[in-house]
């Protein structure tokens, strides 16, 4: 090893690549250490499906940091969008889908079938909600302090998603549209502070549109490729097939990493895009994080989400609308479902979010096949009977549910693949959403920073934590006061 690095980034997913590119742009000598043979992490096309491959992670983009897109010139490096503003489409068992798109009149018209009062209120609700969410960008977009309506923030911080929606709407159909978003991070929609999930989501911006959902051209892998190009162009070294075995410490300060193959790479700062648990319990030496913190981190998440991808020969009529589909009957039943999942059982009511990316970008598959990508919540992370035995039952339930809402689906399935809930994720808490970026990024070990989903207020593909973590790491390298 002749090369010397100032900084090392663990994990070559979108977050790790963003952190490395940002560091390299600032003139820091940085290397990305990726376990797999290719970069991209959960965005890489790693899941085999009927002769092609799809990513195992996120299926839409709704929180990608516009500053990362701008700073790393991602548009110039090939990031284009096939779908820019996917409306929410709630599939109902009565056959009348609720379509909430950006045009308030058309959204109101759709809602009026369920409730006239909700239809009248919807435009006002969205305007007020979006305005407040914009004021939260100081807190959620930058390492800054919130300057907006403190009382409203305190109120939301103590309000559950269910109470928030109950106050806003009267009909079950309207509330159920938000059921999937209400269960981000594995929290119960009845838990205090979960209404912040809506505010967080509404504060995001895609393609210049607040609260939009987008699908990149070429799929999620295109985003990862653009980020890898940016990192490479800025001078970051990317090392694939280099799993990190442990962190090296001198006293309580990070001094490098040791690879699984034995090589030790010294560095003054290390950024980890892994979860807090993996970073501090698995990679750091025992006890380095502190005894109480280790005990806290030892609690594994109980609730997660799974992904089912289907290769379809043809898309059923019900799914031929351009949007993201939400299948949830009632918001209240989500609370019971969450409790069932918490007890380690498969919930009777499942909440699904489905997209057909090939409707926006047919080039994703060869020979005109379609992809149906479905996320399902809430699920037990470690069910009693184990995922290998539970997965077939879950898939069967999901297919039955999809078939009910989109008749003809089952007959057109050419292939399927399934990703069980990840046990490595950190459990989300409401206080985590409102803590400072520095509190989420810094660790008890000096020079070690988190730059992945663990440092985001809400787990999502955003790359914002990576950008801010890189800035904090640069300040640390320059010896600025922390």
């Amino acid at each position, binding site marked *: 090893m002749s090369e010397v690095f100032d900084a090392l980034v663990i994990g070559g997913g979108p977050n790790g690549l963003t952190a490395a590119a940002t560091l390299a742009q600032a003139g820091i000598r940085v290397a990305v250490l990726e376990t797999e043979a290719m970069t991209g992490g959960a965005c890489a096309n790693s899941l085999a499906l009927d002769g092609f491959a799809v990513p195992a992670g996120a299926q839409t983009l709704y929180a990608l940091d516009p500053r990362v897109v701008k700073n790393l010139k991602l548009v110039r490096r090939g990031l284009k969008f096939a779908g820019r503003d996917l409306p929410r489409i709630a599939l109902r068992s009565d056959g009348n889908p609720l379509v909430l798109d950006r045009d308030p009149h058309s959204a109101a018209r759709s809602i009026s079938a369920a409730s006239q009062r909700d239809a009248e209120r919807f435009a006002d609700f969205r305007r007020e909600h979006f305005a407040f969410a914009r004021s939260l960008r100081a807190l959620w977009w930058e390492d800054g302090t919130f300057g907006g309506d403190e009382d409203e923030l305190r109120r939301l911080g103590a309000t559950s998603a269910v109470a928030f929606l109950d106050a806003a709407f009267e009909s079950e159909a309207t509330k159920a549209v938000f059921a999937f978003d209400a269960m981000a991070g594995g929290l119960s929609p009845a838990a205090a502070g979960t209404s912040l999930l809506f505010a967080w989501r509404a504060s995001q911006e895609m393609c210049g549109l607040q609260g939009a959902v987008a699908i990149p051209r070429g799929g999620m892998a295109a985003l990862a490729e653009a980020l890898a190009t940016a990192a490479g162009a800025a001078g970051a070294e990317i090392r694939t097939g280099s799993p990190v075995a442990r962190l090296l410490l001198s006293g309580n300060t990070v001094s490098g990493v040791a690879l699984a193959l034995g090589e030790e790479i010294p560095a003054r700062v290390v950024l980890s895009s892994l979860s807090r648990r993996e970073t501090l319990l698995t990679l750091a030496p*025992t*006890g380095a994080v*502190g*005894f*109480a913190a*280790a*005990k806290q981190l030892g609690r594994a998440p109980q609730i997660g989400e799974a992904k089912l991808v289907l290769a379809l020969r043809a898309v059923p009529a019900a799914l031929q609308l351009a949007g993201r589909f939400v299948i949830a009957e009632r918001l209240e039943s989500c609370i019971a479902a969450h409790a069932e999942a918490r007890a380690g059982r498969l919930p009777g009511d499942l909440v699904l979010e489905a997209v057909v990316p090939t409707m926006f970008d047919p080039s994703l598959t060869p020979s005109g096949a379609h992809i149906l990508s479905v996320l399902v919540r809430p699920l037990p992370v470690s069910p009693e009977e184990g995922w290998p035995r539970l997965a077939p039952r879950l898939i069967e339930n999901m297919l039955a549910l999809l078939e009910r809402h989109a008749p003809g689906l089952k007959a057109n399935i050419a292939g399927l693949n399934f990703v069980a809930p990840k046990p490595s994720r950190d459990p989300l808490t409401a206080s985590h959403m409102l803590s400072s970026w520095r509190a989420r990024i810094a660790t008890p070990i000096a020079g070690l920073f988190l730059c992945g989903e663990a440092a985001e207020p809400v787990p999502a593909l955003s790359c914002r934590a990576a950008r801010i973590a890189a800035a904090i790491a640069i300040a640390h390298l320059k010896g600025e006061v922390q």
Partner: protein
Amino acid sequence: MTALRATPFFVRIAEANKLNEWENRNGFTLASGDPSEALAARFGAVLADVSWQARASISGARAGEFVSRLLTRDTSQLRPGDALKALWLNDAGGVRGIGTVARLGPESFVLISAAEDFGWIADAAALYGVAVRDVTEEEGVLALIGPASGKVLAAAGLEADLHPLALRKYFWRGLDVTLSRLGGGTELWCAPDDALIVWDRIVKAGHAFALCPAGQRALDILDLESGIVQPGRDFAPARDGFSPDPSPQSLGLDGLVDRDHIFNGRAGTAGPGKVLAGILFDSETPAPHTILTRGGLAVGRTLGSLVSPALRRAVALAVVDSAAAAPGTALTAGNLTCRTTALPFLPTPAPLPPATEDPPPGV
């Protein structure tokens, strides 16, 4: 509510407890005794039951690594049979406990403390795959305190050639016992079933030296006179994993923190500290945690306080600013006047070395 437990010496303690005053220490029922017994410890020797002190056995392949991370002083150089006194802190640097750790073997330690903290220690040890066991009830421990204690042990057939902070196993006329010098006197550890035999042998051997049983009050007095800070009596230990209070500095316990050592909660222990000092009162004892002032300005606060029969006055431990730590500084505690003095108030009543049968030169 769990019933109070009896120590292995309970039967003898009950006979000796002439005042019939009892107290609860760590869930054990013990005789309170009379303060004058502390005086006896300064002139002859006393025998006290310290079986109630929480003892945690820490063992496993990584026990050395764990103990070193747990305690505020480096135990890696500790040899089997040696002990040291240290603190353990929570993540933020708040003092959870103060105790003595003795190394029994390469992979085995025992941690002795006046206040138990098994849950915390066991949770932390689990990270290292190290087993922590509460062994408090697996042995009876007697403390033999006073200048004559060495002679008593010698008369009983136990050669007490131990250094302070040492621990040795002995085979004593058919019994397996351990002798240690971890506190003020000499401790004698034995199996619970042997406890009464050990008690009787020591009492019989001590007859010629006016050995008398002492209660917990006397032990408290001797401790405080020696300037030893005890959890519960002198401070409320941190019970939360992330609360920085009380810090070692705020308790004047900086001396038990090794700055170069890497331990849990180290980041919270930076900064200048307060000084532990003794306070002599002209009148009665102050309430615990009374603010000490000088010229109207707060300069510290008292910890535990009691009346010392040897000094014949009320004394207190206190943490004060270093400016007020000079012996003789006049202070006010509420409406009481007092002054600072150096610690310890009195030297620990250590056993006289066996060799000095004659008075030492100059006496």
